[in-house]
């Protein structure tokens, strides 16, 4: 295909476009190396970069822990979220997309409805619920929901992808004597790999960002996530801008690395494995 041939014009367009997209991030890097009084100057790069913003920020003086501890906490939580989300969302989505059962339409409407009700009004009753079971100040309220289908967004996403897969494949397998479970495991699951990678990445990034639930459910500092620790820099009057910006920038890196490593799987989807139909 001609698209496989590298073209300079396309490279150029992509380079310009990418730089435009990341320009503000470059500004951010510069700002994270500035002193507070320097921050209102228009220059992007400080005269003398304050690398201490990174080292002091990392040490995180309000607690005996360093950011390493918070990264470990967050990653541990993320492992649970991603595994739970990917596996259960795929199972549920297969049920909705391929199987026929009573009240399927009804349950699917309910599923979508849970997306439409703003979380701000359910979070307090949910907190009361978890509190009654004494699950507060633990990761349970943060991880558990991911093991119940990972949320309507991902289920719906996978339903759409599964419905894009030709049914001939299921049919052929059925004739070969495969059960519903066989079809799911051996045919659908491998074919929606790009979509599953998407689910994994989004689960990772969005749980990383989900500040409001984290602030509600985690209260001891030794359980803090990166996001919670970051917010500690911004008090009513006093904000440690340099350290805050430095740590905020670092906190984006894991997601960026995960994205970088995972995105090649979009390319290897069905397109290269091909459908032997």
């Amino acid at each position, binding site marked *: 295909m001609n698209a496989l041939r590298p073209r300079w014009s396309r490279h150029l367009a992509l380079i310009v476009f990418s730089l435009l997209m990341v320009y503000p991030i470059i500004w951010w890097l510069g700002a994270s190396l500035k002193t507070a009084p320097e921050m209102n100057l228009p220059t992007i790069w400080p005269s003398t970069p304050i690398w201490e913003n990174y080292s002091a920020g990392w040490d995180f003086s309000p607690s005996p822990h360093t950011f390493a501890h918070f990264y470990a906490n967050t990653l541990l939580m993320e492992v649970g979220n991603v595994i739970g989300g990917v596996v259960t969302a795929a199972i549920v989505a297969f049920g909705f997309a391929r199987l026929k059962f009573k009240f399927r339409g009804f349950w699917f409407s309910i599923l979508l409805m849970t997306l439409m009700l*703003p979380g701000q*009004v359910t979070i*307090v*009753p949910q907190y009361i619920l978890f509190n009654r079971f004494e699950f507060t100040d633990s990761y349970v309220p943060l991880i558990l929901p991911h093991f119940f289908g990972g949320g309507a967004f991902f289920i719906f996403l996978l339903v759409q*992808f599964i419905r894009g897969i030709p049914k001939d494949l299921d049919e052929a397998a059925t004739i070969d004597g495969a059960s519903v479970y066989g079809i799911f495991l051996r045919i659908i699951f491998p074919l929606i790999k790009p979509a599953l990678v998407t689910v994994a990445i989004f689960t990772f990034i969005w749980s990383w960002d989900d500040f409001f639930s984290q602030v509600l459910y985690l209260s001891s500092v030794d359980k803090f996530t990166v996001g919670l620790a970051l917010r500690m820099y911004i008090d009513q009057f006093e904000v440690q801008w340099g350290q805050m910006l430095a740590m905020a920038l670092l906190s984006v890196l894991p997601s960026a690395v995960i*994205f970088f490593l995972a995105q090649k799987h979009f390319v290897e989807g069905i397109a290269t494995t091909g459908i032997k139909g």
Partner: protein
Amino acid sequence: MNTKVATTSTRRTLFRISRKSGESNLHGYLFISPWLIGFLLLTLWPIAQSFYLSFTDYSLLASPVWTGMDNYKRMFFDDADFVQSLKVTFTFVLVSVPLKLFFSLMVAQLLSKSMKGMSLYRTMVYFPSLIGGSIAVSILWRNMFGVDGYINKVLAVFGIEGRGWISDPDSALWTLILLNVWQFGSTMVIFLAGLKQIPQELYESASVDGAARWRKFYHITLPMLSPVMFFNLVLGVIGSFQMFTAALIVTRGGPMHATYTYALFLFEKAFKHFQMGYASALAWVLLLMVALITVLNFYVSRFWVFYETDGGGRK
């Protein structure tokens, strides 16, 4: 390559087989049970609670007091902020959803090709979406669109006098729309995954037929991508109606409530003004509006969304 010509008979066979074993319902419920159990255990009660609370005066700090339809009456007859937040939200949804869809589809097309360095481009383009609702975004956006911001500096080169884009009631919402479109990465990634699911054979045989590139895009890419497009549309609408973080951290709803989105309005009622009862009523009205639009979306989708399962498609 005739994969997309799924016959109706094969579809029926599948269901007949499972029905014959009499396990269709059982299988179905078994597969959706992770979600169903979670829903009944963790979600149903809070949802029901919020519905009940929408008929009460509830400050969070004290027990709710039943007030009947008062919250709903107040909303429709006696709250200028409600009307303002609707105006802001509808503008936001109507502009940012199509813009983001179009933009992310174009970029996904560009980034779906296999090329040297593509991994890096993809990551760079996705980067703005990674920073999400980080507090750094608010500082960043104020630096871009403030009176002394970079946008005005660029404009000054062309002799145009800028203004405080982010703090002028006429333009503040537009900077938030721009921020939203700038963070188009998630939508784009879903398109990217969708593009990669389209069998290459379709394009190859079309090339043999000598089809032009835009014809391939129109006759193959668009129909094959339509389920994913539909997903992005439905979820884009639902998500945009709940737009909240940017309005909270970048503009705090101001100036003059020019960026007072519905979800921010609701949030302030719930957690700042101690009116969780009213906030719950607002949430249910939002649900009703979004549900109506979604039903409409599903209805219209019959005419443009193509599923393999349905057999056939746009030729």
